[in-house]
């Protein structure tokens, strides 16, 4: 089959690879209809996340059709239209029983790598380096899905393929942040990053009762999407002093909840951004915490912060004094998508959540390398490049 592979730092190519096979009784094979680039892929492409091998098949956000089922699969049959959570979780360990699915004890066959880096291994993830299991990704005609009864979800007829695509990763990651941040009705929430995850976190916050949601970015097309499809306020950090403006909009308090949906390759303005760039390029810090620092500084006293953007290692000049003295609560996570995907599909079916607008550029898989370049460089207003490995398909709707 054809697959889009990582071939080296900032290099990808479409190659012919073996078809996936059922390896465990709880597996299914999915014929991929739609699969999309994710901002977190850029960390892999750029070599910021260790553990990639040339030839690894990329892609972790996808939906498609079940074409083969293992002997122990109970909830899926051939022909089902499914969206698949990017994280691989067994559903049986203690963490899964607590609905902390991205922390699954059993979903990562290479546990020692993250155990060494972070003290504990987290679950596995499609195409997120050999640190998170070395699973082949979805930028391919077919993909193997382990623990399918847990991680694959039937798509309701009212939900289109394109809408369901983003219920795989962007939306449940946003929901993980909004829910994990402990939003209560009436809260003001500020979200750094207006990519797919930031937009979904903002919408999730609104549906969880936030009264005022403000999304921060620099790209006008993304901020326009936030206003048009999410219904939140926006701020352009190249125009405004973000901390002062957030204080202005909240009576001097600052947001009750701040959500960082940017991650280790943050952009910014001013000397701290230059400092982070230099230190990262010299490998004196692995991640650029530019947006993270601002979020901590902007948060109100006693407020909550959720780190949704992907960070891999260590950062410098981390304002722990602000966290301690302002009595902040800080949490973070990869997505616990198994917990949120059913309700997200229902929100889409009910017309309460828009996701299709994220797919600004739809193309065949053969154009994957160009799609990633467009996505990485934000060319032509690209928010997400979406690939069709099996050609254009039509949804029931």
């Amino acid at each position, binding site marked *: 089959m054809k697959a889009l592979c990582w*071939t080296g730092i900032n290099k990808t190519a479409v190659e012919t690879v*073996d078809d996936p096979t059922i390896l465990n009784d709880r597996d299914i094979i999915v014929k991929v209809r739609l699969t999309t680039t994710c901002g977190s892929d850029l960390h892999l492409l750029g070599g910021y996340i260790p553990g990639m091998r040339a030839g690894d098949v990329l892609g972790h956000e996808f939906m498609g059709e079940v074409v083969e089922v293992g002997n122990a699969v109970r909830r899926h049959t051939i022909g089902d239209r499914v969206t698949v959570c990017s994280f691989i979780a067994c559903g049986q360990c203690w963490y899964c029983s607590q609905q902390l699915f991205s922390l699954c004890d059993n979903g990562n066959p290479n546990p020692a790598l993250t155990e060494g880096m972070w003290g504990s291994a987290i679950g596995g993830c499609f195409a997120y380096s050999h640190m998170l299991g070395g699973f082949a990704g979805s930028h391919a005609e077919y993909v193997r899905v382990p623990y399918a009864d847990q991680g694959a979800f039937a798509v309701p007829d009212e939900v289109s393929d394109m809408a369901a695509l983003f219920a795989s990763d962007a939306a449940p990651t946003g929901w993980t942040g909004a829910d994990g941040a402990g939003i209560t009705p009436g809260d003001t929430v500020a979200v750094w990053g207006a990519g797919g995850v930031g937009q979904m976190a903002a919408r999730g916050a609104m549906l969880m009762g936030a009264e005022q949601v403000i999304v921060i970015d620099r790209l006008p097309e993304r901020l326009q999407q936030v206003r048009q499809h999410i219904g939140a306020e926006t701020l352009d950090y190249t125009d405004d002093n973000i901390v002062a403006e957030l204080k202005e909009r909240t009576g001097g308090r600052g947001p009750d909840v701040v959500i960082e949906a940017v991650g280790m390759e943050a952009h910014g303005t001013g000397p701290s951004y230059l400092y982070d760039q230099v230190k990262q390029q010299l490998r004196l810090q692995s991640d650029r915490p530019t947006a993270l620092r601002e979020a901590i500084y902007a948060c109100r006293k006693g407020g909550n912060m959720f780190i949704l953007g992907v960070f891999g290692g260590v950062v410098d000049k981390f304002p722990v004094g602000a966290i301690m003295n302002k009595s902040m609560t800080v949490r973070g996570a990869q997505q616990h998508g198994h917990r949120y995907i059913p309700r997200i599909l229902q929100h889409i079916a009910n017309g309460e959540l828009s996701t299709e607008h994220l797919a600004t550029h739809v193309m065949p898989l053969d154009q994957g390398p160009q799609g990633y370049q467009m996505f990485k460089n934000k060319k032509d207003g690209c928010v997400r490049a979406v690939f069709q490995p099996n050609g254009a398909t039509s949804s029931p709707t």
Partner: protein
Amino acid sequence: MTINRGPADVMPEDQLPRPLAELGDLVEVEVRPAPGGKGSELRARLRNPEPTGAVSAAARLSGDDPRQRVRAALREAKQLIEVGEVLRVDPAPHGHRPPTPAGKLVEFATERAPGEGVL
């Protein structure tokens, strides 16, 4: 290793989980309830002293350190008891893998990963 099942499910009738039984006399095994409803704590310790120093480093690199067998067996036992299967990843589809030093390092690290860990 903590397993999300009661001790009676971890070692029914005092029978060792198969991956640990296969280690024979290499280890002594103990199971006890985990606090806070977290299931059971399954412990396996080498009967003989652990390798240390240069001998340990060489054994870990060559994959001959007995602790690697114990960790891998504990992880397999946990999966069999909790899920009913040991998750596999290979053979996974992949493109051309040129023999680069970085690629060899990742390959080596993943080969050792099931048997390495903090404990």
